[in-house]
């Protein structure tokens, strides 16, 4: 409660900043306008108060399942079944967060997820950026045909491809390794190519031509000139892609069986199946909460970039 008070307190200017914007067109030096302004302002404030209350109630609904998870993760096994329910754990069992590491391959799950998501996004981003540069700024034969076929691939849902992909990788012995989760995706991400190409369209051709006249190769132009320009766009797309790979479940469940190769999402799903039978819900919830944390932290740190690029997605769609 007190921390909420502290956060939005600083700018006492705010109400004054808001009102001129709202009424400036009508506000004259007339005295009548003055009273009208204050009525409008009061109305605005009452409206804000109501909206804040409604949004707060909604926010409670949004975070309730997460808080419930966290609360469960700190209970004793018996505390979970207490009646009336314990909204706040009694006692707090922080040991649950120690038990999870030996109760299942959680640590290797995190490692595997890092390997997959890291390799796919780092290598894939490089190739996607290079391709987007070529599609946006270079002359080549069949450019539109190639670009449109890549875009068309977006229309094919993964379930339509997964059976042949599985048998392909099975025939070269890659099942139960991380390779089928990495290899198909390091060739580049069409969504990323699309957005970077869009972004590059606003970069003038003349700077590239000037660099060409100075004798720079296309690779040099890409790394020295283009890459710094599109870095913000790359960063946003990179984060989104990383989170998508990190959270993926369908591909891992098809390919991975052994505990030592499973990704984090599979590990927690197995926790869920295994420990629900033993009614060890605190353990399941602690593991799930740990699985949620990395992406949650990334989101909170980069939320401005993430939210901006998502909003952009809608306007481009």
């Amino acid at each position, binding site marked *: 409660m007190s921390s909420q008070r502290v*956060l939005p307190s600083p700018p006492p200017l705010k109400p004054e900043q808001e009102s001129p914007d709202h009424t400036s067109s009508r506000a004259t030096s007339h005295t009548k306008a003055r009273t009208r302004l204050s009525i409008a302002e009061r109305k605005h404030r009452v409206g804000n108060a109501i909206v804040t209350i409604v949004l707060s109630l909604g926010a409670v609904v949004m975070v309730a399942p997460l808080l419930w998870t966290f609360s469960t993760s700190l209970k004793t096994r018996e505390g979970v079944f207490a009646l009336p329910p314990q909204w706040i754990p009694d006692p707090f069992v922080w040991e649950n967060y120690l038990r999870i590491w030996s109760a299942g391959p959680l640590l290797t799950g995190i490692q595997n997820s890092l390997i997959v998501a890291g390799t796919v996004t780092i290598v894939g981003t490089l190739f996607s950026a290079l391709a987007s540069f070529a599609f946006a700024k270079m002359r080549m034969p069949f450019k539109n045909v190639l670009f449109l076929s890549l875009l068309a691939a977006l229309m094919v849902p993964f379930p339509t491809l997964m059976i042949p992909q599985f048998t392909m990788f099975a025939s070269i012995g890659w099942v139960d390794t991380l390779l089928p989760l990495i290899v198909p995706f390091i060739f580049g991400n069409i969504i990323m190519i699309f957005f970077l190409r869009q972004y590059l369209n606003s970069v003038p051709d003349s700077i590239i031509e000037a660099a060409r006249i100075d004798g720079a190769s296309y690779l040099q132009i890409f790394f020295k000139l283009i890459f710094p320009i599109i870095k913000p766009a790359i960063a946003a797309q990179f984060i989104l892609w990383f989170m998508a790979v990190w959270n993926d479940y369908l591909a891992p469940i098809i390919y991975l069986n052994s505990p030592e190769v499973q990704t984090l999402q599979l590990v927690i799903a197995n926790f869920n199946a295994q420990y629900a039978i033993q009614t060890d819900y605190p353990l399941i919830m602690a593991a799930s909460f740990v699985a949620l944390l990395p992406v949650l932290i990334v989101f909170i740190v980069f939320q401005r970039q993430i939210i901006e690029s998502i909003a952009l997605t809608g306007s481009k769609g």
Partner: protein
Amino acid sequence: MSTTTRRSRLHRQEHLTALAFVALPVIGFLLFTLYPMLFSIYASFTDWNGLTPPVFSGLDNYITMVQDPYFLESMYNTFFLMLGIPIGLVISLALALAMNRKMRGSTFFRTVYYVPVISSIAAVAILWQWAFNGDFGLINQVLALVGIDGPNWLQDTATVKPALIIMAIWKGLGFSMLLYLAALQSVPRHLYEAAALDGAGAWKQFRHITVPMVRPVTFFLVVTSIIAGSQVFVEINIMTPTGGPEFSSATIVWYIWQKAFDNLQMGYASAMSIVLGLMVFLITFIQFRLNRRNQFSID
């Protein structure tokens, strides 16, 4: 003469470099999209267990499919779960309108509502499975506070689909809200001012300015939600591992997955995956056509 050959040599060099830059995504497309897609089409006309070579069987799989009650049920379930889409859109537009006001804390709210979107669906499914627990789950404990004896959500054919819909709305709200918010912020203020001068009340302004101005976003959201909705899998796999009571929460992708990787009926599963692919293609195609028409009417 010599300048033209020089230029054409330069062009050729540019062409080759450009092709090299796009080569990997194109190879990826050929290997991991085009080839599997063609193979899926072929496999859908075969009897195939994934271990021995496929045996051509004509339209058998497709004939089996239309007579398979499980397939029909999973299709029905998949579409039923999409009933949450309009509900989610209405709520998220209302939220976006609320957040579009100039007031404190809207950034904070935006973040809170967006958290479920970035959360992994596996973790979300686990925590909602627990929240829907019939005896000790959050939902029923809250309902008990107001004297309602809640059902055993995920074990009851009548409530398993509503439960999944509630969870899907909760998870998707932040995304559509954000897109609506961006759209609302780009609506020119003078439209509202002019309407207010003409005496249009809040409802009329909403009905005749806001709704038409955010229509492209609504359209985008409907299409992407249908495409995503046709591929629901993770929450079914985790929350109702056997496809729910009397198969009542099995979706089409869940059934494809089960047939292909549990029963090794890969030919049959391929045929169903082709039907799914055609569905998605059709929706996308309609979107492109309608979108083009929308743009014409605005211009």
